[in-house]
């Protein structure tokens, strides 16, 4: 069965620290990959997505993610986090029936 694993469930950082959130998936076919974010009190929003082409994907608010096919990974990164990045982050795979399948999520707290 398709699954998505997020390794870090809770991350606490200070402002200006670098961020990397891990995501691995188990599907062996062609995949479409997403990172969603849910800010406190708000709905899930798309941060970035990968369908094909350049494996380094840039999203909103300075986030980027790298698709490494050989490692079945799609890690999210940001060089310098801000207090406003405090949120929950979800990795998702749009396979095999184009239905988004989510990981457990990572709660990020950024201290000012």
């Amino acid at each position, binding site marked *: 069965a398709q699954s998505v694993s997020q390794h870090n469930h809770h991350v606490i950082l200070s402002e200006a620290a670098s961020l990397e959130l891990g995501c691995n998936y188990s599907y062996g076919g062609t995949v479409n990959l997403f990172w969603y974010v849910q800010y406190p009190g708000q*709905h*899930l929003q798309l941060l970035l997505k990968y*369908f094909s082409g350049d494996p380094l994907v840039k999203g909103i608010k300075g986030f980027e993610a790298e698709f490494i096919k050989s490692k079945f990974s799609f890690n999210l990164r940001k060089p310098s986090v801000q207090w406003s990045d405090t949120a929950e982050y979800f990795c998702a795979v749009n396979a095999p029936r184009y*239905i988004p399948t*989510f990981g*457990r999520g990572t709660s990020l707290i950024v201290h000012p």
Partner: protein
Amino acid sequence: EAGVTQFPSHSVIEKGQTVTLRCDPISGHDNLYWYRRVMGKEIKFLLHFVKESKQDESGMPNNRFLAERTGGTYSTLKVQPAELEDSGVYFCASSQDGGGPLTEAFFGQGTRLTVV
């Protein structure tokens, strides 16, 4: 453009009662999805509508859950009778263009259901 809206935002009910959640997708979106997140766990797929038809309901936990989408517009998810383990946040999402690989799903704010 209005986004995906869900009603109510919160619901607290007693075990054994019935609750109906509603989702209004973005106008023109054929695909509608229901998800549930139990505290601290993954956002789990429940079912998928294409217009008024149930395309995939493999994630529905049991027959206490009934989803409908009459006329292919809004959808309801009824839990009857509710049990304690049904507590969680129920998300609805919608997407257009037949749900293919380029499709982005847009999510509502969710309904937080607490069964006591």
